[in-house]
């Protein structure tokens, strides 16, 4: 119960931080910083899949509602990565270790494995996000830099947050 409460608080804090980024920081048209993939990764792995999908949808929708973007884009991307995160986890982190905590952390998994995991999750999320946001209207030369820069910024911030969360736990 305590763990669940702690996780819920952490996810709420991450969402609040995300909203602050969205509403008060403007890094330009090519960079969109998102902590939604990190928030999704905070949902414990032993959570039932249906509940995970629903929580991811709620996280995305919350960010959509309180931001200035198109409502539904974050929800769609977060719901999509809710089903992708388990296979990504198996491929990148849990190939040989079964003794890890339900929430992947940078200290426990190791920097390289965690970076691989969060990178793939962020890339998948950003690809869906940027595709839905532009809907094929913007040119490829805009889409690629936006996708790569946004992914890089989100990955770096997610690693920093994971380190902070891990140290507090």
């Amino acid at each position, binding site marked *: 119960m305590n763990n669940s409460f702690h996780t819920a608080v952490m996810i709420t804090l991450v969402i609040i931080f995300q909203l602050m980024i969205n509403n008060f920081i403007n890094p330009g048209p090519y960079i969109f910083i998102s902590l939604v993939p990190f928030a999704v990764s905070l949902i414990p792995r032993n959570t039932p899949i249906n509940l995970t999908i629903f929580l991811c*949808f709620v996280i995305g929708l919350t960010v*959509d509602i309180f931001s200035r973007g198109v409502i*539904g*884009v974050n929800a*769609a991307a977060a*719901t999509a990565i809710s089903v992708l995160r388990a296979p990504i986890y198996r491929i990148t982190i849990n190939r040989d270790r079964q003794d890890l905590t339900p929430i992947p952390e940078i200290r426990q998994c190791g920097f390289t494995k965690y970076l691989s995991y969060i990178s793939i999750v962020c890339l998948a999320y950003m690809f869906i996000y940027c595709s*839905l946001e532009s*809907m094929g*209207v913007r040119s490829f030369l805009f889409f690629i830099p936006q996708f790569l820069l946004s992914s890089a910024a989100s990955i770096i911030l997610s690693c920093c947050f994971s380190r902070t969360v891990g140290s507090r736990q």
Partner: protein
Amino acid sequence: MYDNRSLIAATITAVLFILLEVCSALLIVNNGIIQRFKAVGYIHDVQAFFWEKEADLTQFLNYKSDNQALSEENVRLKNIISKYRYRAEKMDSLLFSPENGGYFYICARVVRNVINSQHNYLVLNRGESDGIRTGMGVVTPLGVVGIVENTTKNYCTVISFLNSSQNVSVKLTGNGMFGPMSWDGISTSKSILRGIPAYVDVATGDTLVTSGYSIIYPPDIPVGTVRSTSVADGIVQNIEIDLFEDFRSLHDVYVVGNGDSEELKQLLKDE
């Protein structure tokens, strides 16, 4: 039992996932102008695809009536052409020959087509009440089909060209040489042209058309192409012909009559 539970659980997960993604998509379409515009565009593309398929299907289902209308239109046009050609040629020439006879056409549908014997025949859905008479020719735009043998009020039988006793006068478009063409007795797509002198150079692939030197068939109906040649008896050559007409898929034909046939027959009898 365990498998069934897993299947049900997987189905519920899939349904939930699709449901939430659809909800997200609806929110995006309702809240984003560009997204709405693009989504409507995609929907119109899909609609257009199905409309096109529906139109194709309707066209396919209506092909019989369309085909019938086209056949009737063809007959009407052929009769007009034939009438004007006849008048023009009568005016141009004092000589009378079958080549400038007044041909008329009646469209018909094959209701029976026997092609697997040595004496093949067809039955058409036109008879005496439609103006069909014994001895009329039966043609298509791809060649000759046969000669009307018997008629009833609404039907007629046709001796198919795929008959050992049938000859059709044809000519080579390359050099104008003509001779009798008959079925080779084996294949439904081959025939033999006999009587062309051995010294005549015949090119493979040369087209053959009806010569018009008969009372039955009008001139210049393409019938086939030269496949090969062989010298027979040292003085003439037999020319193997690939027929244009596919007798296995005959559906719509034209019965062709010659308005001057009685006069011509009388003349030939007198001679």
